[in-house]
């Protein structure tokens, strides 16, 4: 019943090492950046003096020095991106063409497995449901709310309440909602949802065990978190609509309904697309919610969760990698769509 602080000391020591490393690396880099140019300047000066003494024309290479600076500034980032992202991504693509121990090439067999194994097809279908529902519903909620509270007296507080779930981890949010969905076979219900069902005269249910309803209930968690993001971005877009346009429409006697569809919606279209795209990508990668709530059981698994299971629980590196690559492939069309949209905006 007591907590031993001494056990924690190695961790704090490690944290201190980390901070020292930070100071040394970043400080060292800045120092280097100061010393190197000073050294160059001195050499340049010496060369100038020598040149003026001997009368030889001066050769200057300022561009090269700029490049050298850039290299130092970019070095840590490029190094880390190479080691941590670029090379691993390429290797994952190769691993997806190999067997579970990454010894033999198997061609596209892992991809074939993905579309022929019933349980994996189920996973893909679930991911599809997620990515169709979350962006749409979260954006709709965010938009409606942003319009409703726009210029209301309590706007700041009202926004904070919706926005707050964004600070909560997916794990925390999953526990919050698991509690809402909680079920008890006998006695009083402790979960809010079952209590509501019971008080309306229904039978309590084990919500998270019933497919396909459970997937929808997990999607609710994601929407609950992401609606705040949609709301903030869209609210800013609404506020950026030029006042004279709104005023002109108002003088023409436009109803609030027409105002929304004919003024607000076209004006915030770019922001709307950005929100949908961002949410789609975030939804495709969703992992924490599924893992915490059901661990992917009862037909609720999604791609990211299955990828984790295959690669890190069953040591099926080939199949896990194939799922990761597939995830990446799914993201690409969304991004292309957004880039095309941005280009249209620039031209239009």
């Amino acid at each position, binding site marked *: 019943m007591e907590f031993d602080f001494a056990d924690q000391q190695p961790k704090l020591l490690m944290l201190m090492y980390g901070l020292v490393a930070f100071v040394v690396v970043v400080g060292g880099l800045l120092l280097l950046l100061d010393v190197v140019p000073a050294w160059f300047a001195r050499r340049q000066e010496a060369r100038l003096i020598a040149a003026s003494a001997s009368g030889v024309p001066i050769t200057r290479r300022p561009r090269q020095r700029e490049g050298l600076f850039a290299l130092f500034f970019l070095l840590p980032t490029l190094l880390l991106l190479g080691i941590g992202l670029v090379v691993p991504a390429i290797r994952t693509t190769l691993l997806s063409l190999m067997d579970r121990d990454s010894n033999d090439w198997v061609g596209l067999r892992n991809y074939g497995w993905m579309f022929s194994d019933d349980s994996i097809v189920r996973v893909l279908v679930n991911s599809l449901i997620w990515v169709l529902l979350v962006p749409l519903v979260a954006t709709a909620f965010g938009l409606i709310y942003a319009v409703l509270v726009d210029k209301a007296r309590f706007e*700041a507080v009202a926004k904070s309440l919706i926005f707050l779930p964004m600070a909560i981890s997916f794990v925390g949010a999953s526990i919050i909602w698991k509690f809402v969905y909680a079920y008890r076979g006998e006695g009083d219900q402790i979960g809010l949802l079952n209590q509501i069902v019971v008080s309306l005269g229904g039978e309590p249910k084990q919500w998270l065990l019933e497919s396909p309803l459970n997937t929808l209930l997990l999607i609710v968690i994601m929407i609950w978190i992401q609606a705040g993001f949609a709301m903030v971005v869209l609210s800013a877009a609404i506020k950026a609509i030029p006042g004279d346009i709104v005023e002109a429409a108002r003088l023409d006697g436009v109803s609030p309904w027409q105002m929304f569809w004919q003024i607000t919606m076209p004006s915030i279209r770019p922001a709307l697309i950005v929100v949908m795209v961002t949410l789609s990508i975030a939804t495709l990668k969703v992992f924490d919610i599924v893992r915490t709530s059901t661990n992917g059981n009862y037909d609720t698994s999604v791609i990211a969760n299955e990828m984790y299971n295959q690669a890190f629980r069953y040591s099926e590196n080939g199949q896990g990698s194939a799922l990761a690559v597939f995830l990446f492939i799914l993201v690409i069309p969304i991004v292309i769509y957004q880039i095309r949209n941005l280009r249209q905006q620039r031209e239009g």
Partner: protein
Amino acid sequence: MTTATPTVAVGTQKTDGPTSTAGRVRKRLNSRTATLVSIVIAVVWTIPTFGLLVSSLRPEDEIKTTGWWTAFTNPQFTLENYQQVLFGRSSSSGQLAGYFINSLAITIPSVLFPIAFACLAAYALAWINFRGRDWLYIAIFALQIVPLQMALVPLLRFFSTGVTLGGVTIMPAWDLVDEQKFAQVWFAHTCFALPFAVFLLHNFISQLPGDLMEAARVDGASHPKIFRTIVLPLITPALAALGIFQFLWVWNDLLVALIFAGGSDETAPLTVRLAEMAGTRGNEWQRLTAGAFVSIVVPLIVFLSLQRYFVRGLLAGSVKG
């Protein structure tokens, strides 16, 4: 295309519309229902968290037998759950105090490193002239869309077996044990954060007035000097925004921690422990509710106190994209 940075009114609220008859008519038309609907949504959005908070303060027997809403008619509150879940000695109790420290030890360096590196890179990409600059920026920008799932398996192998090329060991395995594994997590988080961090800071840094840089150059200031004395002070709001993003992301992350920190009590952060408790002790609500709140409270404080920067960063990162 210049979109003026949309200022989100937080707190200070000026009705910039005219207080003419038109304005009043509009208000009367939609205010009643709008207020009602928005209050309903706000309540629905808040109730789950509120229920968790109330429950975490109730005695174990009460949590397990009655709904949290009965606490208002039959108030019984205690801090026992928090005591148990934070400092309890038995393995079932949570022992979250240790995991809390793990979360801190993971988060602080994982926030500092990427910001510092991204700052330097963003400055170079914005203000130093060198060949291939634009292409390099586009490449880093594009890396944002690579799901981190693509990097997990090879990166873990990189740590555990090192790098050998043609039989020559270029880098030995890290062979980290216990709390040393924090270094792996820092490394992974730093790598994964960089594309977005560079992108966000580049947005800010490239918009600094060019005259300022030019004047400094004419005065003979070198790039490092300009970076330190002119750029850094000017982009502190952006650094704050990025810092909050990264803090929330790392503190709330489950996947990266699960793979690179493992599940042991020496390194696993709160999220990993809570996910495990939710799986194995799904009915121990007295611990889950208190535990969840312990993990929520730090980001909540950070978020509420620095919301302004967060929103600004969010808009800079998404709208201008």
